[in-house]
């Protein structure tokens, strides 16, 4: 069970308080109607599944209700950093960045 630092609350809390929301930095296309079916399909359904560094969106659901990002190693489950929406990760060399 993870021990997660909420960058808004400023402390570590148990995983039970959080919900995982999938890949981070996945921006909704600005003009969805201009997307081809394939582009929209990629936005909807296709996600990388890297071994190693991965950026994820989480929400402190039973806490401050804020969404934030986690950089996590998918192999060791280490959380390498957490940061607020709108901030950039310090660690970014990863396959998940190439997609979005």
């Amino acid at each position, binding site marked *: 069970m993870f021990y997660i630092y909420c960058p808004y609350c400023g402390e570590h809390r148990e995983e039970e308080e959080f919900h995982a*929301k999938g890949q981070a930095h996945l921006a909704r296309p600005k003009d969805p109607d201009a997307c081809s079916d394939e582009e929209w399909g990629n936005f909807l359904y296709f996600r990388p599944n890297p071994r190693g560094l991965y950026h994820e969106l989480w929400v402190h659901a039973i806490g401050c209700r804020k969404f934030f990002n986690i950089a996590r190693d998918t192999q060791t489950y280490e959380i390498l950093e957490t940061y607020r929406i709108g901030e950039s990760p310090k660690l970014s060399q990863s396959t998940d960045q190439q997609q979005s």
Partner: protein
Amino acid sequence: MTQSNRLPRGGRIDRSRPLTFKFNGQTYQGFAGDSLASALLANGVDVIGRSFKYSRPRGIIAAGAEEPNAVFQLGATEATQTPNVRATQQELFDGLVSQPTSGWPNLNFDFMGLMGTILGRMLPPGFYYKTFMFPQAAWDTYEKYIRKAAGLGRSPREPDVDIYDHLNQHTDVLIVGAGPAGLAAALSAARSGARVILADEQAEMGGSLLDGGYTLDGQPAAEWLKATLDELARYDNVLLLPRSTVNGYHDHNFLTIHERRTDHIGDRAPANHSRQRLHRVRAKWVVLATGAHERPLVYGNNDLPGCMLASAVSTYINRYAVVPGNRLVLMTTNDNAYRTAFDWQDAGREVVAIVDTRQGAAGAWQEEARRRGIKVLTGHAVIEARGRKRVQGAVVSGLSPDGSQALGSDQVLVCDTLATSGGWSPAVHLSCHTGSRPIWDDEVIGFVPGKTVQKQLAAGAVAGRFGLNECLEEGASLGALAATNAGFTAEPAAVPTAECRPETRPMALFCVPHHKRNSRAPKQFVDFQTDVTAAAIELATREGFESIEHVKRYTAMGFGTDQGKLGNINGMAIAAKSLNQTISETGTTIFRPNYTPVTFGAIAGRHCNDLFDPMRYTAMHEWHVKHGAKFEDVGQWKRPWYYPKPGETMQQALNRECLATRDSVGILDASTLGKIDIQGKDAREFLGRVYTNAWAKLPVGKCRYGLMCREDGMVFDDGVTSCLGENHFLMTTTTGGAAGVLEWLELYHQTEWPELEVYMNTVTDHWATMTIAGPNARKLLSELTDDIDLDRDTFKFMDWRQGTVAGVPARVFRISFTGELSYEINVQAHYGLHVWEKLFEHGAKYDLTPYGTETMHILRAEKGFIIAGQDTDGSVHPYDLGMSWAVKEDKPFSFIGKRGMKREDCVRTDRKQLVGLKTLDPGIVLPEGAQAVDDPNQPKPMKMLGHITSSYYSANLERSIAMGLIRNGHNREGDIVYYPLENGRVVEAEICGTIFLDPKGERQNV
């Protein structure tokens, strides 16, 4: 019964407290301080079970958690039945009742024995693997017998009478294991002031110090042990947890400890005491001091009762004053095990010989053996044990220096106990739980903990350091390091020095070669619980299974409740040899939580019965209970389902509730509907983005129904949102969807549109909501309010008003989920019951009838109103529902779901679409989930058109009604489709519109 194997003195037992216990129906005596295993051995009980596959008699091998055979069913009553209890870890108490779980139907003669080789042939290696590929039916047949025969125990058929606790712990240093290394670590950490938890699976802390005749600084080890435990007990910052197994090491240094608080006292816990406790520990640093398990050697018939681990024999002698036999042969690959022969001799029994597998072994231990007059055969090995239900002799042969061949002629040594030691395997289990792979170390001749990302240190035998002095020193220094890492100033505690005989190099030997090939030799068991032999592992590699994980699955090695603690390393060594590889080339092994079996009680803790999950009640709940409501769970809410009168069936109650509502007036407790308060200058814009319809022009005082879709265009929730002020809205959601909708709104606001100024919060629990519906609803409400104008032309359908109802502030919404004239009265929750009761006071003359969720479902289905999550399932978009009126495509912002609905697959004309369905026989109510077909006589699998989503008997229409999805259904009105049911019956139904009653909507507009 006499305790024939009990020594007249010694041991850590209390001879003044004799205890009576039962095993397999027989009554025996032991002493306080005994384990169930030591008491059985004291009584000379040799056979304690029969093996799973070959039905061979089995005895006790070990003295700790690694015991594979003595795994029993405990419990004096049905309610206290506990499976999977290792007799070696169960303290004896007066009145203990135990049963072998293997050996059905009895230990000494059984059906399985009769089957003999037949079953062996039935269950060759790869049995599981091959069986799982059989049809399910075959497995069903086998499983019954396998479970019964395999010694898996059974769960109680009555509710558990005991209570169980969970405790959340936060600690600076968690030390696992209170042997010499763990104790020294605890001293160092505790003295720094760090919060320390020291957990040990045994009743007494001390580990190996309890088992041998060690001296520390010239004094018996027991004295240092007592002083250390006394000191630790004095510290407020130290929690000592005996009888507590650290069973799981999870991510981010989260560990679970299973504490058995009363299992040593009796069959059930004393009143108001919890029987077991699960500690959920978040530790800053962990010191693993879990020790090591002695490895038995593998040889022919090594499963005969009387074949034991050398160290276990020493433990039984020193700790329990039990010598489990009279004539000992010891086979060893190392010096340390000589201790067992010396203990045996000191207990006054005969050591026939020490068989040392090493060529020319010579040193202090051999010297001591000679001094004691014990025969030592170096460069020899026991290749086979002889006997029927107990060892009667050991066949000894010469051994080639590399351990690969049995040489020369055999001699048979007459003995009744055959102790072996193949060295020690560090207990690396916990370090593996988080995915760290252990590493083979040729010096250690074992796996040691590998690289880990956990904040974890390993001290003593678990790290491959087996000497007592090494353990003490490393423990002290790593205990200090852990405390320092956790932010304390710590020094290694001074530790005493043990007097140890120097040891010469051990030999890496796992399976003793026989003159015959392994496949022809007497069975050489590797895993006793699953009856896996050396030959079976060789067969697996010959059949092409080269990965050790595949070998394990093929043979079932390590799949028992002991997780292969004794056998896995030997099995890997045998596989490696068979593949002509080194052990590290063959790979490594994985251990998963839990280290030993944990009761479901401990896992559940207090989260059972009423506390299983939080329950939510509305403000009027007590009224519903008093008036006989039957409840249904909706999410965590308890909602009235229907209100049967005495003698009424459910259908009779529903018919009455439905008719009363449409004929006069009914009332529903709608408090559970999700309510989200939304404010901010961009609230209106926000609504326009998350709903499919338009919100730009909704004036204050008006309500509007809206659909919510995911980005893929599929409906996921719906509800009415009201405009309370220019920048203030109240959104309602489905009862079950409330939390999810709020999180989803926050997601879009926080991550996509942070520039919108909008705030939202749940207010579901703030309001009690009661819906009165029916032709008399207005008359009833008018008696309770004098400041809300209820005139049909001023307070119109889809309007809301603020005012006073029954003397309290209220918001009244004229909205309808029944198609009737209907008002939803919202008052602050603590006024709810008052208003509800006032409504009944005034409603009696209108026969005001409470109705529950089931009647609500029927009434809305009569009107064709959908329930998101029932008539939709995440694959249905608004057009499929025939609700194009709820989608406003020309909104300036591309609302959520818009693009999704336009994908190629979403604009097909032959999608499954929601339609009404009338059975040709109006008395038949189709089951929800029934599948429609065009031709019921077509061959299976039939081409299915869609399923029934809602289906009821409508008392108002005097017939059944249903809604369902039908492929291309919107273009098939009037067609007949067929529903073949499970019972073979086929029901015909006609496709129709979804509105069964009042298609023009006149009833709600009166």
